[in-house]
């Protein structure tokens, strides 16, 4: 379709970079159940890539493969032009891939600020001793990390809850704090697992705006899973459609929308 190394301009007039991540013939099984069956697709730098599909299509499994929580039995993951060996989730995170979870995984006992601060852990280099002494380098590092965190907090408009323990926040704000923590890591690739699930219309609009702004302002590449077709079509540059673990469509939103297989998967097929 396009040259892998070339950037191109989408129908919306947005410029998308070269291939950053490539999934090649991924197959993931749990015992006898095939969650993902021979799926390949790529993610290009600077784009918003959506993965959609009905319940149980294997979308979250795919995200878990990318973030190292699941290891596929077959297939290869290529990242930044090199084949990625089997990695643990924390190693993937250290490569600059941050994520959020469908069921929100926050540090419930910590304040919003502390939660977002954990996103900076991999940017803290100073050892225990100099940190304990707290002078010079460690202090400068702490100040720098705090500055990044404050910027993210401003950006996502959660200043008013920065000292609040996360366990006291409503669902919609928790989702936003989780996004903030992922952003604080300054990721090259951001994975969002149903960022708008369970939100009302207003919250969904806010979240959509944040996702677009993040992509725009920081140039972060985003892979997101979403149920709400309207939202997906508005946000994304390219869409992968999954059904029963298989890929049934891949392309710009307009193309996918008119794909017969996709329509069948979503609306059901008349068996006659």
């Amino acid at each position: 379709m396009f040259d892998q190394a070339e950037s191109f301009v989408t129908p919306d007039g947005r410029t998308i970079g070269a291939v950053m991540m490539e999934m090649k013939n991924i197959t993931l099984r749990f015992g006898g159940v095939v969650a993902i069956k021979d799926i390949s697709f790529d993610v290009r730098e600077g784009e918003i890539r959506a993965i959609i599909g009905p319940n149980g299509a294997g979308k979250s499994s795919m995200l878990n493969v990318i973030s190292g929580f699941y290891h596929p039995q077959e297939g290869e993951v290529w990242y930044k032009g090199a084949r990625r060996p089997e990695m643990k989730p924390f190693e993937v995170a250290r490569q600059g891939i941050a994520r959020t979870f469908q069921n929100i995984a926050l540090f419930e006992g910590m304040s919003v600020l502390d939660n977002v601060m954990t996103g900076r852990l991999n940017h803290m280099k100073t050892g225990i001793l100099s940190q304990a002494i707290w002078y010079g380098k460690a202090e400068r590092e702490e100040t720098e990390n705090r500055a990044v965190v404050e910027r993210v907090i401003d950006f996502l408009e959660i200043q008013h809850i920065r000292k609040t323990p996360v366990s006291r926040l409503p669902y919609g704000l928790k989702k936003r704090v989780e996004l903030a923590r992922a952003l604080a890591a300054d990721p090259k690739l951001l994975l969002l697992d149903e960022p708008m699930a369970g939100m009302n219309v207003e919250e969904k609009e806010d979240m959509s705006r944040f996702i677009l702004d993040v992509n725009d302002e920081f140039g972060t590449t985003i892979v997101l899973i979403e149920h709400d077709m309207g939202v997906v079509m508005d946000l994304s540059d390219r869409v992968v459609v999954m059904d029963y673990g298989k890929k049934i469509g891949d392309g710009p939103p307009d193309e996918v929308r008119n794909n017969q297989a996709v329509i069948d998967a979503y609306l059901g097929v008349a068996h006659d």
Partner: protein
Amino acid sequence: MFPDQFLFGVEVLLNGLMAGVLYALVALGFVLIFKASGIFNYAQGVMALFAALTLVGIMDGQVPFSHLINALFGTDVHHFGWHVPAFAAILLAMAVMVGLAWMVQHFIFRHLVGQEPIILFMATIGLAYFMEGFGDMMWGSDIKKLDVGIPQGGSFWIEEATAFLGGSNFYGFFIDQLDIVAAVVAVVLVILLVSFAQYTKQGRAMRAVADDHQAALSVGISLSFIWVLVWSLAGFVALVAGIMWGAKSGVQFSLSLIALKALPVLMLGGFTSIPGAIVGGLIVGVGEKLFEFLIGAPFLGGATENWFAYMLALVFLVFRPQGLFGEKIIERV
């Protein structure tokens, strides 16, 4: 001038506080591991014993496994013939505890990730008995004297400074210098641990792991590294407790039983609170000494110190199951 009986009561109270500090030192190790990994480490007391045995063994230049070696090869080696200074020996013993932490994580708990708490607890019971036997095999079962240079005996300074409070047959409060050192060490240890958890990268990661494994992984924290770190810290606390208890009453296998006294301390203080472990330890220490002095000895025939702490914990369990500082248990329906 105060009546002698009152002054004696105050002395009992002070000594109770000091004993409480030693309980708290053991309880601290429990809290560290429980907070970070949800494992109730039954082996904490044995770790203190093992640390003290190792320390004495290194200081005296004992040959590890000497009985085994002698039995296998018909040799007769017991000592290398050198003595290691206390400070160096403490560092070496700490290195052994870190190695132990790594082995515990690598050979046991790495394989039990995600298991029920009761299974993890059973594993620590196994670990406790293994370490007790292993310590015996490595260093021998005789009672050893531990002298790392901590001053012992009553503090004359305190005795002289307080002698004026009573009559002519009151010679001032008797407080063991070792207990004073233990109290200072405990305070320093708590300050160190709390600031480590609060301000360092590894401390933050530790708190994150304690809170949510999945989230911790997603921000790039290696769970197994943190768990080795936590077991090492618990090993460090065990070493400190082992030094204090060992210097006080000799390094002997009954040392591992003090771990049982840490249980009521934890029930009082809460299993997840570092300050709770300290306050709980002090309450148990003071409580059992004062109870013995005021009620136990005069009315109950004495020896109440053996069970008082457990009774107190039982009462606490009924009225405040999460302990003084524990996280409140709220059941949402």
